């Protein structure tokens, strides 16, 4: 989706705030929220769809306002509500509604609805070879995609074939498009191809892109 999360090349976000000796978690709630969402993963396995897409669907103004761990917490809350594992009243009070049966962990689905992120040992032919000129396709999927906007329509060179991975793109409900195992390539884009003459002629941006995102350059 063309969301505010797809930030590469945007202006106006301000200076980078580097903090010396930064703690891993700035507040106790950040660690608790992070641990909670990790611990709750079994409740959604094969059902909750793409976490990345859930994060991207936080409304833009909220996304920019929220600290990082609040985004993760928001995703967990949205999923629990949508799955009827908690009610808004329970969330507000922090106490279980005694009139509701205690949720039980559902058995894992017969096969994962979302293909994993692992490299796949599948004999799939690579459409592109090292050194080949390619172009990132000018596509604008409304679901989750890993094709950053700033690369679309731009020409680059294949510098590495990373092997076969399931496509992580989703539909508008965050559900997998079926995996579509394919090669993922590292593409070198000259900085000037992306940003024009303001960029150094020496510099480049390297992006790992699924084969579906590419066409012959």
């Amino acid at each position: 989706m063309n969301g505010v999360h797809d930030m590469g090349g945007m202006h106006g976000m301000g200076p980078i705030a580097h903090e010396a000796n930064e703690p891993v978690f700035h507040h106790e709630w950040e660690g608790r929220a992070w641990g909670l969402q990790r611990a709750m993963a079994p409740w959604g396995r094969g059902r909750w769809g793409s976490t990345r897409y859930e994060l991207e669907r936080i409304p833009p103004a909220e996304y920019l306002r929220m600290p990082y761990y609040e985004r993760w917490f928001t995703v967990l809350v949205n999923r629990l509500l949508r799955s009827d594992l908690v009610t808004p009243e329970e969330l507000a009070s922090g106490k279980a509604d005694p009139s509701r049966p205690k949720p039980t962990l559902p058995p894992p689905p017969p096969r994962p609805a979302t293909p994993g992120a692992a490299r796949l040992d599948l004999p799939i032919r690579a459409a592109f070879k090292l050194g080949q000129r390619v172009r990132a396709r000018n596509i604008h999927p409304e679901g989750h995609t890993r094709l950053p906007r700033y690369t679309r329509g731009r020409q680059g060179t294949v510098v590495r074939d990373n092997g076969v991975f399931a496509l992580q793109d989703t539909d508008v409900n965050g559900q997998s498009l079926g995996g579509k195992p394919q090669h993922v390539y590292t593409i070198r884009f000259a900085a000037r191809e992306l940003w024009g003459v303001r960029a150094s002629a020496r510099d480049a941006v390297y992006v790992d892109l699924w084969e579906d995102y590419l066409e012959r350059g």
Partner: protein
Amino acid sequence: MVPGLPDSQQPPDHDHDHDHQAVPSDVALRVKALESLLVEQGMVDPAAIDATVDLYENRVGPRNGARVVARAWVDPAYRKRLLNEATGTAAIAELGYSGAQGEYMIVLENTPKVHNLVVCTLCSCYPWPTLGLPPAWYKSAPYRSRAVIDPRGVLEEFGLELANDVEVRVWDSTAEIRYLVLPERPAGTERMSEEELAALVTRDSMVGVAKVKAPQGAGPA
């Protein structure tokens, strides 16, 4: 800032303008309420949350990556395995660092002529087993938006000015590959042990926003 104290001894500053600004006062309460509810329902074990917090606060972090870098600096055969795309992940695992967000590691070598910088413009992907959870600036809109379009400006903001003849390579880790920068070993460290070298290596140098500095008195920087 506390006047007269070096940066390394400054207390954390939560007032400045970074990704944690404007935290609604109730988010801590909402997290607490959800945790109590899920514990009451038997859906989550608080000890599992404690364990996750402990893991990322105390056991996984940039000290791991620093050991990888120091080993590569002192052991040429290890360095070769580490920089080889086919064996880099295994070379890191040799030192005990593997798992989620470190399954497919590529190590990028910084040299006097090539400077590598890592970002994730779409999310905040980061190599957890070697660097731990990412710092706030790495996850922030300013870094994610600017690293690809103005890497030299970003580096200057971190205090690193690169000559025009240095090639800057920005790696936008939007897929499943995770990147670790192998910084240059500073001059004047020839006599240091692997352990002493590891102590010099910073998280920032392994993301590519800084160089490793020689210790004071170790010769020309």
